[in-house]
């Protein structure tokens, strides 16, 4: 659905994943140099899985009085890292501005699959100590085990493609 709008200069940059990736990587380092005094861990500038965990666990702790684990930076600060909340807000604003907000629904069964998928995705991502993005940051930080994690993700993607192809062939 390409619109014929003439995009502005900044938007041309924003639509280029190469630019976006570079920017996220560099800014994640900037976030560390700004905020590391609040507590670790290192290479923690951006992570969808861990930052969601911090927000959810600290939220649950505040409501239910539990002591669920979170990263030191989120435990110490007045509020946990809000990156994921920001992502949701930023993407929503952008989708509205560029008129790309479309409500897409699915069947009740698909909702259940996505719910379970999200649950297990989170569990396995936390096994690795981060989502693919933090693994990328950690690899840039010199963490070899994170690099092994990325290789495992590639293996998982290859397996997932086979499974997805098999499933569509059976349906079709």
């Amino acid at each position, binding site marked *: 659905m390409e619109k014929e709008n003439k995009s502005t200069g900044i938007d041309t940059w924003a639509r280029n994943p*190469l630019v976006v990736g570079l920017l996220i990587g560099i800014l994640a380092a900037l976030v560390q140099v700004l905020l590391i005094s609040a507590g670790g861990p290192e290479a923690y500038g951006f992570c969808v899985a861990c930052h969601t965990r911090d927000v959810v666990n600290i939220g649950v702790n505040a409501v239910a009085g539990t002591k669920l684990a979170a990263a030191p930076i989120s435990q110490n600060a007045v509020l946990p890292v809000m990156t994921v909340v920001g992502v949701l807000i930023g993407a929503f604003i952008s989708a509205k501005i560029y008129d790309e907000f479309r409500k897409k629904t699915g069947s009740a069964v698909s909702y259940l699959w996505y719910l379970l998928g999200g649950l297990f995705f989170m569990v396995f991502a936390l096994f690795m100590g981060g989502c693919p993005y933090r693994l990328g940051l950690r690899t840039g930080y010199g963490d070899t085990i994170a690099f092994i994690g990325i290789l495992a993700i590639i293996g998982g993607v290859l397996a997932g493609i086979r*499974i997805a192809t098999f499933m569509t062939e059976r349906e079709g």
Partner: protein
Amino acid sequence: MAAGWLSKEIALIAVPIVTLIFGILIGWLGQRSGFCSIGGFRDFFLFRHTRLLNGYIALIVGAFVGYLVFWLITPAAFEHFFWLMTSGFTPVPGAPAGLSATGYVILAVIGGIAVGVIGVILGGCPLRQCVMTSEGNIKSLFFVIGMCIGSVVFTLWISGLAIGLLKGIV
């Protein structure tokens, strides 16, 4: 003690503000570019499209360059850069604590494969799912809710279990 540009008192207040602004920027860029890590690998293996894959590789390169530059300016904020040199074959803290290197490799391999499979079948990594949620995709909304539940499930039950099992084996 690690020291960044902001003093500890200010940093404790600045954490949610800085990360929120950073997140809004990532959300905007992610929505415009369709940025996706797992999608990058998928598109490459299925169609030999390198557009998204280049983005993920650029993220790793950008992170390395960023860490290197800021480390040169303020080494105190990056105590263990470059990790392999300072800390050897161990992971940056974040995964379940107190395991041997073998244990962490096992966790990374199991986690990575599962994350890759789930990401491909459900059409995206967590960032893409968050962005699609904001674009009005209800299925992705359920994925994000599932992630929130998964967080509590992991912390309460699975983390301890995994550490116990791995300490028993390796």
